[in-house]
């Protein structure tokens, strides 16, 4: 380990070239095609004829140093000391010798990391901090992810599905998990207006608090002599922006917090353009440790899609083809007032034609 003495800053990350295996250095930018060999296993063939085998293993994303070191050991054992993580937090082992693949997979299984998630399989759930580290959470992240993937794991490591299906979770409306463009999104929500704490004016600038509310539901007032704020509850849509600027307006509430389920978003440009997720289920309760209602709802939506979608069709493309009324019918989800947009651009989501499946 280096032991410089003067204080270094702004050196940036280590250069990626130091991290690349020889086969990649040699064929960098000269890959010809790839093939999926087995669940979680693919090969990339270079113009030179060289082959790079990738084995993708599931990860809980939250990893202790012990497990990371175990990954490092596997990389040494099978991959000349090279590995990478994916944009969905899986871990990928990079081999040049395909005869080692099965052994690697066996070792990974032994460690508790199923292999899969490549091609038309359901991959890892992009998620966030939840109760593990964030003050803003309306639900936990890791727990729901574990429960849902336990239930869907067969789609990760065995079964094929019609196309890619991306699930994401964010524990509050800040949407760090960028759930706003996922095939299925699980979103932590508050449903009770902030509870105004005494001495608010000591902790927060009242004008900032008032300004923070997009619906102008917060007004200044005085509570027994003290300047404070009052909230017109009908005007609150639970964005928590006021809480972000003022800790004295907590929104977390065991009785009313929960999750909503969203569907049909995507980011790739393949076939259809990138699009946002749309509301499917307005509210499900927080039921730790395994959130059975959420698990059940996600599986239901997944199965409707698996049954009905054409090859390569993403969730949103499938729903577009059969129409939203039919999606609600097939999933048994009841269409309600909450589904109708009433935000800024609401009018543009109304059905402005007579093109209806009757």
């Amino acid at each position, binding site marked *: *380990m*280096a032991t*410089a003495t003067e*204080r270094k*800053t*702004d*050196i*940036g*990350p*280590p250069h990626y070239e130091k*991290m690349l295996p020889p086969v*990649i250095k040699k064929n960098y930018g000269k890959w010809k*095609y790839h*093939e999926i060999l087995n669940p979680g296993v693919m090969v*990339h063939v270079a113009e030179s004829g060289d082959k790079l085998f*990738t084995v993708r293993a*599931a990860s809980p*994303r*939250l990893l*202790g140093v012990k*497990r*990371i*070191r175990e990954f*490092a050991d596997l*990389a040494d054992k099978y991959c000349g000391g*090279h*590995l990478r*993580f994916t944009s969905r*937090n899986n871990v990928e082992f*990079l081999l040049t010798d395909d005869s080692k693949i099965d052994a690697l997979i066996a070792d990974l299984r032994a460690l508790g990391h*199923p292999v899969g998630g490549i091609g038309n399989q359901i991959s890892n759930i992009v998620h966030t901090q939840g*109760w*593990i580290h*964030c*003050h803003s959470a309306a639900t936990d992240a890791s727990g729901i992810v*574990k429960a849902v993937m336990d239930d869907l794991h067969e789609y990760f490591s065995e079964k094929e599905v019609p196309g890619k299906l991306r699930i994401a979770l964010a524990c509050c409306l800040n*949407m760090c998990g*960028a759930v*706003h*463009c996922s095939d299925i999104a699980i979103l932590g929500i508050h449903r009770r207006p902030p509870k105004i704490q005494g001495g608010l004016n000591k902790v927060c600038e009242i004008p900032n608090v008032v300004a*923070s509310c*997009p619906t102008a539901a917060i007004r200044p007032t005085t509570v027994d002599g003290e300047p404070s704020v009052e909230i017109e509850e009908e005007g609150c849509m639970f*964005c928590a*922006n006021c809480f972000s600027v003022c800790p004295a307006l907590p929104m977390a509430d065991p009785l009313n*917090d929960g999750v909503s389920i969203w569907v049909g*978003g995507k*980011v*790739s*440009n*393949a076939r259809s*353009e*990138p699009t*946002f997720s749309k509301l499917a289920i307005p509210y499900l309760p*927080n039921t*730790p*440790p*395994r959130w059975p209602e959420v698990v059940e709802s996600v599986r239901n939506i997944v199965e409707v899609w698996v049954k009905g979608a054409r090859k*390569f*069709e993403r969730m949103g493309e499938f729903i577009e083809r059969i129409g939203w009324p039919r999606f609600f019918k097939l999933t048994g989800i009841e269409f309600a007032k909450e589904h109708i947009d009433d935000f800024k*651009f609401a009018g543009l989501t109304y059905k402005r034609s007579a093109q209806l499946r009757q």
Partner: protein
Amino acid sequence: MADSGGNGTPLLDQLESGPWPSFVTQIKEAAKDKDECKDLLALLERSYEEKIGHWKHGGIVGVMGYGGGVIGRYNDLPEEFPNIAHFHTLRVNMPSAWFYTSDALRTICDIWERHGSGLTNMHGSTGDIILLGTETDELEPTFKELTDNDFDLGGSGSDMRTPSCCVGPARCEWACYDTLNITNDLTQAFQDELHRPAFPYKFKIKCAGCPNDCVASVARADMSIIGTWRDEIQIDQDEVRAAGEAGLDIQKDVCMHCPTKCIEWDGKTLTIDDENCVKCMHCINAMPKALRPGKDRGATVLLGAKAPIVEGALLSSVLIPFIKLEPPYEELKDVIERIWDFWGEHGKNRERVGELMQRVGLGNFLEAIEVEPVAEMVAHPRENPYVFYEEYYEEEEEGEETE
């Protein structure tokens, strides 16, 4: 099963069973020799019982000279959980595309075992290595060891956030430019903007090598750089037929899915009207051995994606339809700096670039950053007649224009 957390955690214990790898097992493992992890486990169990989180707003903590890279965090029951009274996370800038040598990983582990909880996120949603939980006093020592070992912090707060990219040319045959190189280059070029928050709000850059956008840049980056090409898709007709024989229904599964229906299959030959191809990637995705992107490659640069808080979510929109991306990327860097200048001057506090564009109007925004408007920037021209015509004639000087 064994309760290695020190406190009873009957609820969390239930999350150790099942086929998917368990985060609880990870924390318990760490709890064996770290008191803060014992407390974390116990606090989390409490949250599971009460259905509510126990973390408070983070204060401003960090390392000397940096404004970002650390997220301060304190719990609201410090007496009961003293070992995580403060439990800050460091965001460590990952190498491009998350490639590691086993040694690099071990180095991180060693440092973090010495100075923190030993728990991480590999990786955070923005892409950083998240070192999950330590005390204020440990921040500076951790930072020193990181920099001594070639690592540095990523972004947080109102600064440029850690740029990230897809695996690109390192392993993907479809990369239309060098995503790893540009990501590293921009990160190094803008170290000051990354470490010292001076913007109205956060600014994220994500680089995807092709329109498949494997880093979800169009949804999650203020600047989304998406590879593309402007010549013909390369076709190997034999491989197309092979794909067909291998069972792919080319008409149904490929042609019918083409957004512009510009690809035709007569059972023998595949023909593409490249002029109407919108480079969606689908046909190439469906037949990786038969089709490849064209040879004249570059990228489309889009601007303005963000999450919903508070004016509604945005996807990035086209700023530069096509640009060649070769080091040192001067043209792109100039644009970025012009954008930052205008945003810095006119952006409101906590206003993302995408929101600013809409507030001042894309047309005015383009004028300000000296980019010509082109039809590729819009899905379609305006539908409303409310044009701000900027000049009119005065009676006196007929023919002359005035502001």
